[in-house]
């Protein structure tokens, strides 16, 4: 499997067979006794201007994938092919630090915690302006102008730039975090749970802001989240992860209308619907997520799957194209009729 969306222009990001294993060491000589397969053979592409939603429960590897793309961690194996502004395709996974530094401007991150991700001792001017300073904008006047422009872009008043983060609410701080991520005019933004710490009324404001910025600045998003309704709202395509693997990847509407993997369907059924007349399904997923250090045999989902057969215990399914553009890692993806109501 090389390319998931057929395009003439190479995709902005092409992740191929990405792996990240963390060693488990034991004893006084820290002998390596095994590996946590946090990310195990993950491949996907992201087209320019697109939003890819990455969903899964805690420990599924979604954060590790996003950190590997940013090269905050070094992947164990695999390629992270990125098309630069100049149109050159480079592999972020193996680049040296110096080469990477120039590219860091193009790939930025929006963090989950709007309280922890800003320096409390720096004014907004310094917090938002720091990436500019690091990238060689020495003149304070120039930086002030750019920060004012950025604050306006995210819906904050430029006068705020001399205040400190503590003076702002959670939603405003998340806007500040977005302004900082936009400072270097990035092309790809990795947002790790950007709205999960926010109140419902503020969450909608930030989601609207992200959608608006995307169309205005032609941004590409990787949106990591556990909240399916939020992911569904913002994403063009959705990738579902389970125990370090992609189990389903498809356009948003297709995933939600007809999921092809039983885990995706179970995940959707588990979401409490904000309507007392819609009952949650009785078929609640049993058991717990297995440890990525000791995954089950065959299909990783088989111990919890109500459709599991003998083959699922023995043979690990591959991620394969079930419908055009719709990938699922299930032996019986075609036969099962899964839907939200199922």
């Amino acid at each position: 499997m090389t390319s998931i969306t057929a395009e003439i222009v190479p995709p902005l990001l092409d992740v191929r067979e990405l792996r990240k294993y963390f060693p488990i060491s034991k004893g006084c000589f820290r002998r390596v006794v095994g590996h946590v397969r946090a990310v195990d053979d993950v491949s996907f592409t992201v087209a320019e201007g697109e939003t890819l939603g990455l969903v899964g429960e805690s420990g599924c590897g979604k954060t590790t994938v996003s950190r590997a793309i940013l090269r905050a961690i070094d992947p164990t194996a695999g390629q992270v092919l990125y098309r630069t502004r100049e149109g050159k395709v480079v592999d972020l996974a193996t680049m040296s630090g110096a080469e990477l530094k120039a590219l860091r401007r193009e790939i930025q991150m929006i963090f989950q915690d709007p309280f922890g991700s800003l320096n409390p001792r720096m004014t907004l001017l310094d917090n938002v302006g720091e990436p500019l300073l690091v990238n060689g904008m020495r003149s304070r006047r120039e930086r002030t102008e750019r920060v004012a422009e950025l604050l306006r872009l995210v819906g904050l008043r430029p006068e705020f730039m001399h205040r400190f983060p503590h003076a702002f609410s959670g939603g405003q701080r998340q806007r500040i975090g977005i302004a900082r991520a936009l400072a270097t005019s990035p092309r790809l933004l990795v947002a790790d749970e950007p709205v999960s710490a926010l109140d419902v009324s503020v969450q909608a404001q930030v989601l609207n802001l992200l959608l608006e910025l995307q169309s205005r600045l032609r941004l590409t998003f990787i949106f990591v989240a556990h909240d399916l309704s939020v992911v569904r709202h913002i994403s063009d395509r959705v990738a579902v992860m389970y125990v370090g693997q992609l189990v389903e990847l498809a356009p948003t509407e297709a995933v939600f209308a007809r999921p092809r993997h039983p885990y995706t369907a179970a995940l959707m059924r588990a979401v409490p619907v904000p309507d007392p007349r819609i009952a949650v399904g009785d078929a609640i997923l049993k058991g717990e997520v297995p440890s990525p250090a000791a995954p089950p045999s065959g299909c990783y989902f088989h111990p919890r799957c109500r459709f599991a057969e003998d083959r699922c215990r023995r043979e690990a399914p591959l991620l394969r194209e079930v419908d055009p553009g719709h990938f699922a890692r299930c032996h019986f993806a075609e036969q099962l009729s899964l839907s939200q109501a199922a």
Partner: protein
Amino acid sequence: MPPIPTAAESGERIEPLLSVRDLRVVFELDEGTVRAVDGVSFDVRPGQVVGIVGESGCGKSVTMKAILQLIETPGRITRGEILYRQNSTRPRVIDLARLRPRGALMRALRGAEIALIPQEPMAAFSPVHTVGQQIIEAIMLHASRHPDGRAISRHDARAMTIELLRDVGISMPEQRVDAYSWQLSGGLRQRAMIAMALSCRPRLLIADEPTTAIDVTTQAQILALLRELQRKYDTAIIFITHDLGVIAQMAHYVVVMYLGSVMEEGPVDEIFHAPKHPYTKALLRSIPSLYGETRTTLPVIAGALPHPFNRPAGCPFQPRCDQVIPQRCAHAVPRLQPVGPRQQASCFLYHDLAKPA
């Protein structure tokens, strides 16, 4: 299935188990006074699940702490009553707001008749005692006798604990009883917490965001368990959450709070299908749906939650409200009044009664 309210769940004629009346809790800080709970009233009837929903700073957790007399200084209850109908040999009504937090009566009620499921089971369990030791301690402390009058021995309490762990769906309870909380997964830990809360057969259970720190498939399991246990023991539950989905699936009756005040309350179906208060309506509109159109602009509530020192004049929601009445809403605080057969709202769109200053 969403519970169809039985007479006990919705019946107004049954005496409430708990009546909160005009409760006010303030925190006196150097910078000023925060009115965390500002005149809140609601009832909980036996066997009823009352959901308290609101965003951060709305006072839902402080209300819960006031009921349990767990408010830390500099906070204190300055007004109002928390009437609890105790079911001893002679039924009597106790005003919890008047009890000393460390007094004998409050300590006898807390944990035994009114129990808490906290948000973070990791922080609530002691890491240096096994889960079993902690549940056994609760049983020994509150239920010193069997129904037939025999004293409960430590051995009996251990057997009861194993039964409780089995009851909340923990497999291999004989082994799990000797586990430390940090050896359990998040879901198991919350199940153990539920077992502990239920250990003394409380009449009122307060669940404070019990599934917020848990993954969605585990959350579904925990919510199903709570529903099942609620039916089985007919426990009244105050369910505190910011998640409207959880409220819709769990509660019979919903109290919507904003900045320390009740904006609206009513049966769950009315709140979700016929909301009256502009805040409730706006809140419901602003959540992305699993069924609606994607990548559209979501309707938002304008502005942000005001800072607690900087409360708006008049109705607390007035600066963000899209149906504000200019000459009225900023000048007086609307009172909680009936707006339907079983629904109440504090909003001048429906009546003209202001709260006395």
